[in-house]
Each structure stands twice: as structure tokens, then as C-alpha cells.
């Protein structure tokens, strides 16, 4: 399936990209099979993600999933963020071919690790 316009927009204009000074929840996860890498930095205060930023290396879906993840979780309560699913991210991107959904799985895994690592 072709990439959606929303997907293409995340590639052309990534949201919330970069390092996040003062982050208190950081995780960098790698897909051991394909080598894609996603780094998520969170500032968490009072049970809520105030800000989220991402860095990504990998195929276009990994970049787009990083972008949509950081955008989506900014402002979210931790309990809500922990409920976020791969399917929700894929839907936010306007769909992804089945063989590309591993990118959304990496994004969810990175989010959970960053929350778990938070101090």
C-alpha cells in the first residue's frame, strides 16, 4: 500500500524531533533484526508527560512512527500512555502495510522503556 499523506507529512516535517535537555525518562531501543533505532526522551511531571522528543535511524516507517509517537504522547497522562497500542499509532499515520508495522511495535516498546526508566 502507498504511504498516506499524513505519513508523508511526518517524514517531510517531523514533529518533536531532537534531544530534550532535562529529560527524566529516556530510552533508546533497537530492532535487533533490522537495526532500526529509536530514541525517546520524556519530561514527566506529576504523572503526566509534559514534553516528548525523538531521534530515529531506520526506514521511513520508523521515522514516521517516532514522530507520531512523540507528538501523540506529549501532554498525555502516564497511565494513558501505557495503554497506547501499536494499532493506534498506525491509525494516526493513516495506516501502514502489514510488513511495516514492526516500526510501530518498536515505537511502543521505546515508549514503555522510557516511562519505566523515568526518575
Amino acid at each position: 500500500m502507498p504511504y498516506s499523506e499524513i505519513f508523508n507529512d511526518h517524514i517531510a516535517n517531523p514533529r518533536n524531533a531532537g534531544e530534550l535537555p532535562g529529560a527524566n525518562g529516556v530510552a533508546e531501543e533497537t530492532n535487533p533484526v533490522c537495526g532500526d533505532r529509536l530514541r525517546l526522551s520524556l519530561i514527566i511531571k506529576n504523572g503526566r508527560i509534559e514534553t516528548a522528543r525523538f531521534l530515529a535511524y531506520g526506514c521511513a516507517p520508523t521515522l514516521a512512527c517516532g514522530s507520531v509517537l512523540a507528538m501523540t504522547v506529549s501532554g498525555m497522562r502516564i497511565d494513558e500512555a501505557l495503554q497506547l497500542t501499536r494499532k493506534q499509532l498506525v491509525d494516526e499515520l493513516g495506516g501502514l502495510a502489514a510488513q511495516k508495522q514492526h516500526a510501530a511495535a518498536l515505537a511502543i516498546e521505546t515508549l514503555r522503556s522510557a516511562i519505566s526508566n523515568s526518575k
Partner: protein
Amino acid sequence: MRRVYLDHSATTPLDTRVLEAMLPYLTGTFGNASSVHMFGQQAREAIDKARRQLASLINARANEIIFTSGGTEANNLAIRGICQIAESHGRHLITSEIEHPSVRGAVEQLEKQGWEVSRLQVYRDGIVRVDDVRQAMRPDTVLVSVMTANNEIGTIQPIAEIGALVSEERAAGHRHLWFHTDAVQAAGRIPIDVQALGCDLLSLSAHKIYGPKGAGALFVRRGVRVTPQQVGGHQERERRAGTEPVANLVGFGMAAELARSEITDRSEYICGLRNRFERELETRIPEIVFNGNRKHRLPHLSNISFRFVEGEGLLIHLDLNGVAVSTGSACSSGTLEPSPVIRALGHNDELARGSIRFSFGKNNTAEDVDYAVDAVTRAVESLRALSPLTRVMVLDD
């Protein structure tokens, strides 16, 4: 938005002169070339002309050309066709690490059937060594198959030298030995002369030389037999059954004639564009690696790894900005095979994953090149800003 097509190694646009030559055979002159009546004879005459045009491109005789559906079929016919004929004399073949998937696939299938295969390494420059072919040669070797030029990095292989080695071997009594070369990428871009190359079989494809998709050919030297892979018809002198796609073959013939007459001008022009592109990129983007020997390579092709950036991400970025390129790596189902060709050069996975092939064509312009340089520069800067690998590099510094 401007659209710049830099993927001519994947396929080329149909030349309008080729289209004009084909059109009558899609409408009024529609006969089956096997038919005895006038409609059929017109089709037969057109195919015979195309065969002569193609033979002329590679300095062969017309009756040494077998038309196929494309380069993949030509490679399959060459490898399987020879090995099936020759297996009573030996079950060993020599090939390179960087062959096209259609050669790789045919060879792997033979391997599963018990054939032994020697794969020649290509070193950092992407070129096989004739001495390695000599070393790999065994009394039971029946086939050497080495591509004329590589499809991803464009490196030109020492085919005439390998042909000379095969001739020497035969002269020394190694009678059941044949030499095939896949010239799909090379034809129309560098001169191909089957007499000078000394090959027994050579594969060609129409759509790489501004002809139509769905037409290819295998040169089979007079006296060399191949087992047909398509049976059930008398076409192509019993070597490839099936009604000929007359319009496609007419187009192939015309494309071959144009390639032969224009090869020098085309190559000089395209090489100029490619060199301009590389010069500009070298100046503007740090941390890039040119893959393969930059001297002995096809004039239209440039393969570059951009460090800290993944090829497919870059490809999509460029596509969104109107620039069409390709990458040897493919990511699907969570598995990624970094380009086997770039890995064969001894590069690590990161460089193999970050490789992009830019392949220029006769319709590209200097403005296209400048636009592409800007687009690549912006895309690489943007992706590097996102890449955690860049961050690691900065911290290391």
C-alpha cells in the same frame, strides 16, 4: 514540483522513436509470426529485422540471438540451459558474489540440486580478479557466469580476460566449459562486442536501453546448445517456445539500433552529468562513501553511502521532493537485508544500509542534477539531524 528520475538502472523511459516503430505492430500489423499467411509473414519480417539490429549492437550473427521476455529469463535460460546440457561432464560452476538476483536465484537452485558453486569475491573495489577465476577452475567446472557490469555499483568486470582464460582452458582440453555474462546493465552504456569478450552466452534486456518492458535476449554462440526452459512451440528455432511479442521485439530492435549509433554521445553526456553530481555532493555533504571502483564503472551510475542515514528513509525523503532513486537494502517484516553487493565490498552494515544508487539517463539535464544535489543535501541534513547515530558520533568526538 519538479520530478527528476535518477533510476535508469531500474528501467528507462521508452524512446519516442522506439514507440513510433512499435505502434504499427500493436494495431494493423498484428499477425502471429508463426502464421504462413501475409499477416504472419509481415510479423516474421519485423522480428527478423529486430534480430539483426540486436545482433549488430553486440557484433553477433542474427541467428545467435534468442529472444526472451527479459533479462531474468535470459539469465535463467543461460544458466539452467547450459547446466542441464552439461551435467554429465561436471557439476561445478563459478560465479561472483555480486550477480543480479536472477543469476543468484538460478545458481542457488542448482546448488540445492547438488551442484557445487565457487563464488568469486570482489574486493573493496567491486571487481573480480581473473586469477581468482583461474584458481577456482576445476576439471568438472562447466560454467563460468560473471556479469559484465554490476547493477548496483556499476563496476565493470574483466570479461574479455575471463573469456581469454576460458579459451585457454578449452585449448588445454577442458572441452565442456562455457562462459556466460549478464550484460543487461552494460549494453547500450559501454560498447559490447561478443567476439572481443569471448563469451558463449550473453544476456540483454530491452527496457534498460529505452526499449519496452517484456523483451530480452540471450546471445548463444553458434555451436553452443542450451536446453530450452520454455517448451511446446517451434519459435526461436526450438529454443524458446511461445508466440513472439512482435511489437516489443520491434521496439527492442529499434532501441538497440539507436543505442549502437548514439552510444558515444549518450555515454559522454550522461557521464558528464554523473560527474557533476558527484563533484557537488562531495563538496556539500561530509561523511559520504562512494561504493566500488570509480574508474572502471558504467558512465551513468553512482552508488553512495551516507553515514548515519538509512537508505530507505533517504529514498522516501527524496521521493517526496520529486527525486526518484533506489537502494539495495530493503526493510520488510522486521527483517532487513543490507545490500549484499555493498556487503561484498567489505563495508559494515551501517554503510550497506545507507547506500543509494543514482543512475542517470539521456533525458536528464544539468538542471535535474542541480535540483537533485539540493534535494539530497537537504534530505541528508534533515535525516542526520534526526539520527541517534549522529548523536553518538558527536558524543564520541
